[in-house]
Structures are given as structure tokens and as C-alpha cells.
């Protein structure tokens, strides 16, 4: 009997490759379900073990703005959902690009050395911009690696772009089903360390007759994301738009993140980007372990940086990659650069 079935299967798979793929997926899915039930039966973790787990390994993806990183204890944390919201043009998508690129920083330099998933709902992904940021990152890493010749792994622009998976989503049904399908993908690619949804709001902005249904589907989506974040040890970053809320008594309006009250409780970290005195600021609004505070940041050609940061290649127009040996003999070009290098190593 078994042989017959196998033969049938072979014939079938010869007919079309699609069903073969499906079988493979099914096996992975069954694995996932089996693992899930094991995972549920676990006896819980004591807080002490959690603390020890948190301490070892790199558990953060840095943003390259040292003040934001300090605010978050070293960058966007793995295993958590971080929400970033702000007015249009403030730099949410730029932040996303920077994070995508920074995910592939090697372990030895304090990165997580993984892959990243970008779920695009607004169509704002720009290959050129990501490539630009990646080029600057490679330059920067090379600059750092000169000091540590022992480190062998050197990311190139190609590897960085290779480690980014891009999904384009148009409708809320598509994003819901995508999130349901993602565990399959993650089961195959366990080195994915970041999922960015840019933005979660757009598919859910209209089309809903029943607002209760919207909230429920959003919440279950977020629960799925959270589940993946803990199971596969990855960071989830969700971009959110803002909306105005008008108070009738005070006759003034305030800007609040979209998606209502119940959504706000889902995210573990919450950051609001805003303008103040012609300067971009990042406000950590919600965090279980850090103080709420705000800090300025800047967006330049090379990505997200500190305010007043000057890229070394602007001071040295020759470029580092051409004259490596000269660079090695020279002292670092300026103090700013030195600080930044230190900051990557720690």
C-alpha cells in the first residue's frame, strides 16, 4: 500500500511542482504545530533565568543614533514589538531602512547578524535609498574593521541587500494572511531577526463597516506577531500614522497615534517621532524598563545619525576603501568618528 502511495505521489509531483512544494510546506507546518504544543507545555521561566538570558548575546538592533540607542538600552530590542509613530515626512520609513540595513551588522561588532523582513503596505520602499544607506554602512564597518583585523566576516552591499526580504501588501486581507503564513517562512529561515511593518495603519484605515471587527482582527494580528517575536527571537517594528483628536472642552486638537485605545496596549515599546524647533525628536512614550524621555536625531544622506554628526567620508573625500593602508597609519580623522566607532564596538 505504502509503495503505491509513494508511486502515486511521485507521479503527482512530476505533473506539477506546486503540489510538491505544498507537501514540503505541510511538513514544516506540522513541525511548527508540534513545536508549538511543546512550547505551550513549558513550565514557565523564572525571572532569574530571564535576566541571565537577557544579559548574554546581542539583544538589540542599533539605530545609529546614539541617543536613541541609549534611551532604549542599546537599540530596538529583540522579542518585543516596538511601535514608531509620527507625522508624514518625519522619517519613519528612513528609520525602517536604517534598521533593515543594521540587522546585518556582524555579531563581533555588536550587531545581530541576521536577515530582515520588510512588509510594505504603502509602497514607500526605495531600493536606491536602502542601497545608499547600505553603502555607507559598509564604508563605516570597513573603517571599524581596520582596527580589528581579526574579524573575518565582512558584509558587502550585496550581502546586505540579499538579507532583506520584501513583501508588498495591498489589502488588509493580504496582510492578515501574510502574518499567518510567516511562521512557515521563519521555520525555514531561522536567522531572520527583524520584521518591519510599514505601516500597519494603511490597510486598516478605511473599508471597515464594523469597527469592532477591525480592532479584533488587528489585535489577533498583533498577537501573532508577538508570538513570532518570542518564538524566533526577533524584533518586530510597526510603523503607525497619527491622527488628530479634538477635545470639545479645551477647544484644542492633539496628535495621537492611530488605531485607537486597545491597540496601544499591545506594543511593548512605543516611540513617537515629532518636530520641535525645526529639529527631529524621538520620544520614548512607553517602555517597561526605561524611563520615558525624548532626544533629537537627524536624517542625512547616510541614514539616521546623531545631531551634528559628520561622516568621515566628507572630511576625507578620497574615500577609505581606496587607500586602506594609508588609513591604517593615519589617526582617525576627527573626534566624532572616533566616538562613533567606540559606540559600535560596545
Amino acid at each position, binding site marked *: 500500500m505504502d509503495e503505491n502511495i509513494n508511486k502515486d505521489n511521485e507521479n503527482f509531483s512530476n505533473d506539477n511542482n506546486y503540489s510538491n512544494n505544498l507537501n514540503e510546506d505541510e511538513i514544516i507546518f506540522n513541525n511548527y504545530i508540534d513545536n508549538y504544543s511543546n512550547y505551550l507545555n513549558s513550565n*514557565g521561566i523564572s*525571572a532569574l533565568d*530571564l535576566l541571565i538570558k537577557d544579559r548574554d548575546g546581542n539583544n538589540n538592533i542599533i539605530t545609529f543614533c546614539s541617543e536613541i540607542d541609549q534611551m532604549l538600552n542599546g537599540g530596538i530590542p529583540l522579542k518585543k514589538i516596538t511601535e514608531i509613530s509620527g507625522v508624514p515626512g518625519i522619517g519613519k520609513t528612513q528609520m525602517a531602512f536604517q534598521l533593515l540595513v543594521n540587522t546585518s551588522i556582524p555579531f563581533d561588532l555588536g550587531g545581530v547578524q541576521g536577515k530582515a523582513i520588510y512588509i510594505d503596505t504603502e509602497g514607500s520602499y526605495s531600493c536606491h535609498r536602502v542601497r545608499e544607506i547600505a553603502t555607507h554602512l559598509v564604508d563605516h564597518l570597513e573603517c571599524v574593521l581596520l582596527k580589528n583585523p581579526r574579524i573575518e566576516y565582512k558584509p558587502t552591499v550585496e550581502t546586505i541587500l540579499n538579507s532583506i526580504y520584501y513583501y508588498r501588501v495591498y489589502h488588509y486581507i493580504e496582510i492578515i494572511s501574510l502574518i499567518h503564513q510567516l511562521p512557515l517562512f521563519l521555520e525555514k529561515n531561522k536567522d531572520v531577526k527583524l520584521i518591519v511593518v510599514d505601516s500597519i495603519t494603511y490597510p486598516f484605515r478605511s473599508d471597515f463597516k464594523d469597527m469592532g471587527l477591525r480592532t*479584533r482582527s488587528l489585535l489577533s494580528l498583533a498577537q501573532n506577531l508577538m508570538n513570532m517575536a518570542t518564538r524566533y527571537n526577533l524584533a518586530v517594528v510597526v510603523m503607525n500614522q497619527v491622527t488628530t483628536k479634538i*477635545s470639545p472642552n479645551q477647544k484644542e486638537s492633539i496628535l495621537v497615534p492611530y488605531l485607537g485605545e486597545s491597540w496601544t496596549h499591545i506594543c*511593548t515599546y*512605543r516611540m513617537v517621532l515629532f518636530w520641535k524647533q525645526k529639529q527631529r525628536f524621538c520620544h520614548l512614550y512607553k517602555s*517597561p*524598563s526605561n524611563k*520615558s524621555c525624548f532626544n533629537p536625531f537627524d536624517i542625512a544622506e547616510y541614514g539616521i545619525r546623531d545631531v551634528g554628526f559628520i561622516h568621515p567620508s566628507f572630511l576625507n573625500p578620497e574615500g577609505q576603501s581606496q587607500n586602506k593602508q594609508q588609513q591604517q597609519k593615519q589617526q582617525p580623522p576627527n573626534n566624532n568618528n572616533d566616538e562613533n566607532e567606540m559606540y559600535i564596538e560596545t
Partner: protein
Amino acid sequence: MEEEGITGLEVRFYQAQCLSEENVIKFENNGYPMIDLILFSDAYQIQRNTSIPMETIYIIQRNLQRLFSSVPINGYQHYLDIKEFKNHYSSGIKLLDQLLGGNGFTSGEIYELVGNTSCGKTQISMCCSLNLSQQYDSNIIYIDSSNSFSPSRLTEIFKSNYLLKQQQKQQQQHKQNNDKIEIEQDKILKILDRIKVFNCFDSITLLDLLGTINNTLCVVSDERPTFENQFYKGLKMVVIDSIGTLLAPIIGGKQTQGHYTMMMISRLIKDIADTYQITFLITNNTVSSGSNGFDNKAALGEAWSMVPNHQLMINHQYNDDENEERLIYIEKSTRLPKKTMIKSFKIRDNGIVS
């Protein structure tokens, strides 16, 4: 769910107490496999189906009723019992203790913290679990639905509290005891070890988890605890942070199934709290109510609001970083006066201070 498992209501379990062997067989063969069917069916109907004499059926029904009904307790005796057996646990936060009648949490009661986002619910529940572990050496289960439990924050609270005490001591005695600091800092490891964190992202997992807790507690109270479930012997508090995110996706609209799950969860919580005298601290989020959307009320609706014994509301006004206001007061309580005390608090390095 009940189809496969044994519910404990099968007729054969009651053979020794009220039923003779032949009656059991008669009941089982004629469509009365469960005890509740016998209890609630009409006696004539049973007689017609099983051909057991009427008198015997009456006696059986009466015996069963006696078996299941609870026993009246004298009011005064009950008062004395409660005075003796109810324990009070200080939450470690002065203003919260004052709000709760001076003694902090009472064992076997369910407390609910309600407030909008980043108002300090998680901070309060972490502070409370830290203090219970520190002061009473008790074990705590922390059920975390949004991955916001942070052991590093607990260490921070402990350290800064400890340093504060040390400073006060030094001011009094003008002495430095460096050896002692190290000993005390080892203590935090033991404190953290007594807190067990469960990650839980959907309502079914929560139901499962509460079921496991209930079963393990049942086993532990009957027998000598084994190595694995030794933890449950000293269990004093269960924190659920937050129930709103867990249950919100399944209720609302015409989802009766979700409502059913919620009621199952609430019944389990009440059962565990009362039988094993365990304090529950549950955080819940808010939904906007009223036409303008600026008033907040607790999420999950009327049916859930019956579950907690005490509901504490937190109001958070955020203007600037310097101009922040957090207020806490009692919204609903079976025992404590309502809204008479409104306390303001701040979140600092060393936990929650007034």
C-alpha cells in the same frame, strides 16, 4: 473539550455514596450517564426510562442534593475563620497599601488595575511581585501577554531601594559596611528565582495555563510536593498582565464562543483564588466611552467587571516631561470605600513613590 476527559460527574463515581450497583447499571444503560441528568430530570421521566421504583429515585435525588449543596457557616464563626486564615501582604507601595485599607493585599481576593497605556500598570504589578517575593519569601506566577516583564527593571528597583536604605543608615551611623552590600545583592537572585514568568499570547493558552495551575495546586495540597511542583507550595500571588489584550480579540460582536471562553477563565480565576487563598492581580486596559471619546472605562464590558473584587483606576495626564500626573483611586470594591481617597504617584528608579 469535555467529551474525552472525565468530568467527575459520571454516575459510577457515586456508587459508594448514594447508588447501589444495579441502579448504576440501570442509569448508565438508559441514557443517564451523568449525575446532573438525574438531579435535574423529572422523577416520573426517570422512572419510565429506567424502571427504578419512584421512592428509590426520590431518595437518590435527595441524597445527591445533600451531597452537592454547600454547608451553612455561622456568621460569627466565619468572621473568626477569616480573621485567622486571611493573610495580608503589603504591596511595598505605601500609597497603594493605604488605598487598600492599610494592610495591602488580602489573600484570596482579585484585584484589577485599570488604566490607559503607559500609565504604570505594569510598573505597579512588577513592584508588587518584587515586594511579595522579597518580604514574604512567597512564590509568584507572572503571566505576561505583551512581553513587558523586565527582570532588569526589577533589579534596578531593588538596587536603588537598597542604596537608599544604605545611605540612610550611613547618615545615622557614619559607618561603612562594604561586605554587607555584596551579601544583600545576592539576595536579588533568590528574589528573582521565586518569580515565574509565563508568556501567553492568546485566550486558549491562558485557559490552559490556569487549568494547569489549578490541577497542580490540587495535587500539591493533597500530597507531598515533588521537585517539579514544589514551586506551587508557596504560591501566593498570580499576576496577569494584561487580560485586556488577551481577551479583546475574541469578544464583541456576536461572538458567543469568545464570551464563553471569558466566563470559563473568570470562573477558574475565582475558583483558584478562593480555594487556595491566592491573590490575583490583573491589569486591564481601557476603552474610550462617551460621545467625545475622552472618558475611559475598563475594557471587556459588564460581564468581566463582575469578576474582580476590587477595581483600581489609574488616571494618567501627560503634558510635558516635567508635567506628568498619575492618579490612582478605587473605582469598584466590595469592601473598601469608593473614590474617597485619590492618590497621586510617580515612577522613579526605586519603584513607585508618592
